[in-house]
């Protein structure tokens, strides 16, 4: 069942973000969780044997402005695709923000280890 593998991917990312103590590893875990969630949303809209939601010239009747029934019955769900499209670009922006925080912390403390950083603060 593909949903179960997708959930396993999410759990691996969550484990990485919770347990590891390297800062870049935590960022990588958050990225893995993002991939899993995007994949799950697209999977929810998949129709087996479907076509991409792009209308061909053959499916469109110019006079009556009607779309052929074979496209209506075979198209996959376009709504999760539109949501995931914005989410992917946002994930790149947030990745840049997290990485800049990591670089700044490295320049200040000289390490990526969060337990070291906490000890230096204390």
């Amino acid at each position: 069942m593909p949903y179960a593998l997708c959930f396993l991917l999410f759990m691996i990312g969550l484990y990485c973000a919770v347990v590891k103590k390297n800062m870049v590893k935590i960022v990588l875990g958050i990225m893995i969780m993002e991939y899993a969630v995007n994949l799950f949303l697209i999977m929810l809209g998949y129709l087996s044997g479907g076509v991409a939601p792009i209308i061909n010239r053959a499916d469109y009747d110019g006079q009556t402005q009607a779309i052929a029934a074979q496209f209506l019955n075979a198209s996959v769900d376009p709504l999760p695709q539109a949501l995931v499209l914005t989410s992917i670009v946002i994930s790149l922006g947030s990745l840049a923000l997290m990485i800049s925080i990591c670089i700044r912390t490295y320049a200040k403390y000289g390490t990526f280890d969060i337990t070291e950083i906490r000890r230096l603060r204390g």
Partner: protein
Amino acid sequence: MKGMTVVVKTVSSWVKVLIFLFGIYIILFGHLTPGGGFAGGVILASSYVLLMLAFGRDLVEANLPLPVASKLDCLGAFLFAMIGVLGLVFGGVFFVNFLYQKYVPQEPFDLVSGGAIPLSNMAIGLKVGASLFLVIFALTVFRYDFQDGGRKTAVADGAEQQKE
């Protein structure tokens, strides 16, 4: 680092034009074929990133200075918001597709179709490309400071603040 070897420089100077054209194509045909403003904007940014990696920072900074990129970023966001406001003015609802079948005659499957959607695609592409270019440029600038001994001073600054 003043850029990579001559092979990389030659190949990237040929390829950069193709990548930029492909980004413009993806943006312009976003309402007919797969693609759109997001993917096209990231491709435009990646062509400049290729130049930055191959030729070093100075060439890119001469071509597209940081204030210009920042202004392009703001211009893209402003144009996209203005399309929504124009929909409010001409159509009565915020973000209504005011151009479609009202002011411009258009047929489906043409390049000029979809009303305000291609204009929105261009604004989004400009915004995404400029902002991602700005992020990677900022990362590069900081790394150059790093190699010129900036790290030593940064660590020293941190140590001083620890004592305080």
